């Protein structure tokens, strides 16, 4: 019955042109949504980005180090940010690394003490007062991140969160800085989180420029 109206349903379709037109429209629509979200978020969060950048620059200037973490795609975003800080295309390299890189450590912790402690246990081993903990979560409610942030805060480690939706539990956890991308699309949240993270990096670099100029 529906074949007449929806011939695609049986897989007997041959209208490739219609599919390609659909895909092209989808690219335009999603890219426009992504760009609009990025611009709106950077505009809305401008003072938060500046404040986070200044606080992080102070920690770096005093010898602090940055640890980043996240789950799944967000773990790769955490690595991207650590790489940007440690090996920037321009500017000053700063000590940063991601806590998601070592499968021996992650599987040891996951197996022995449980997945929710995979980042907090690493902070217990590595973090000192004055360091910086940066976590990425699209939901804002990843349990392992919340445990890690609580551990970081108890050690006088600066806590910086990147969250989506309404900020989730990270938005209510009393982080020093929580940058929220107000969207319910995981993909669009991650794209804008990257842009916000890049803006934070620029803010940190900007804080160091007078130091470099005087050097």
């Amino acid at each position, binding site marked *: 019955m529906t074949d007449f109206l929806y011939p695609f349903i049986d897989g007997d379709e041959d209208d*490739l042109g219609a599919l390609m037109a659909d895909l092209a429209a989808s690219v335009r629509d999603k890219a426009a949504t992504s760009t609009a979200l990025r611009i709106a978020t950077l505009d809305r969060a401008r003072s938060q980005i500046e404040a986070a950048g200044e606080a992080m620059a102070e920690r770096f200037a005093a010898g602090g180090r940055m640890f980043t973490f996240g789950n799944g795609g967000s773990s790769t975003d955490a690595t*991207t940010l650590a790489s940007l800080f440690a090996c920037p295309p321009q500017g000053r390299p700063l000590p940063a690394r991601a806590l998601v890189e070592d499968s021996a450590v992650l599987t040891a912790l996951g197996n022995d003490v449980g997945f929710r402690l995979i980042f907090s246990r690493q902070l217990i081993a590595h973090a000192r007062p004055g360091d910086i903990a940066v976590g990425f979560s699209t939901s804002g409610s990843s349990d392992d991140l919340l445990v890690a942030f609580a551990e970081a805060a108890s050690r006088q480690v600066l806590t910086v969160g990147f969250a989506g939706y309404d900020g989730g539990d990270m938005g209510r956890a009393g982080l020093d800085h929580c940058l929220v991308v107000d969207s319910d699309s995981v993909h669009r949240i991650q794209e804008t989180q*990257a842009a916000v993270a890049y803006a934070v990096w620029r803010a940190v670099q900007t804080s160091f*420029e007078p130091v470099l100029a005087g050097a």
Partner: protein
Amino acid sequence: MAGTGTEVDVEPASGFAATSRVAGDALSDASAADPLPGAAYALARRFAAGATMWCLAPTWPEHGRHVAVEFVHPVIMGTRALPAVSITGPDPVAAVRAVARPGDVVLAVSTTDDPVVAEVLRRAPAWGVTTAWVASGAAPTDVRADLLVHVDDPDGSAPYDGRLVLRYHLLWELTHVCFEHPGLLRDDPAGAGEVCITCGDEGRLAEVLGATADGLDVEVRTADGVEIVDTSLVGPVARNDLLLVHAGIAIAAVAVAGLGAGRER
């Protein structure tokens, strides 16, 4: 304004010495020439035919992992898990050579001048794989992928500010739109080469596996599998050299720029 495809300057906040420039994204004006729809359709056809997608990003392995996890563990409920694997480690060329099978896909994320990716792309025809390249930087010149998604990136920020992520997110999203139309995904013959009008055979790229006992014939790998070819026209060859093969005879040695054709990898 979103969707203009231009660069938008956001006013610097007080206390900022530098502006927070926000790159607009030309994708929101994507024309018929935009490569993403064609690339996604090609990926969907390869997956439907049983391909595994090998993802490599030598400089930014995290981007290779991000692509792979999108496909393997989709965030949208109900979309099928597809076999994608991130390739990391010290020698991605050797790693892909070992695992890729004819009909597979190799997806690279890199700058356009990445020498490791260039070598993978040059060798890909001998391995019989379809190549997709999400590339940033100046437009690529002498290196070609079957599917190219290019981002102009004069200051090197695209890997960090979300623009590369947007491209591969869209590839994933569009690939799954294609899967809603299974009738359009059937019968994807793995790429047919140029055929010689005299003898009906093609000039095919081959990678040397090893010499046979008599020294003139060598075992090579091509998109069609393993075969023996006569090397008397090209002289001595070493393992992993690239040859152009025609009618069972190696008619030319193919230079591999950058990393050296003679180097055993």
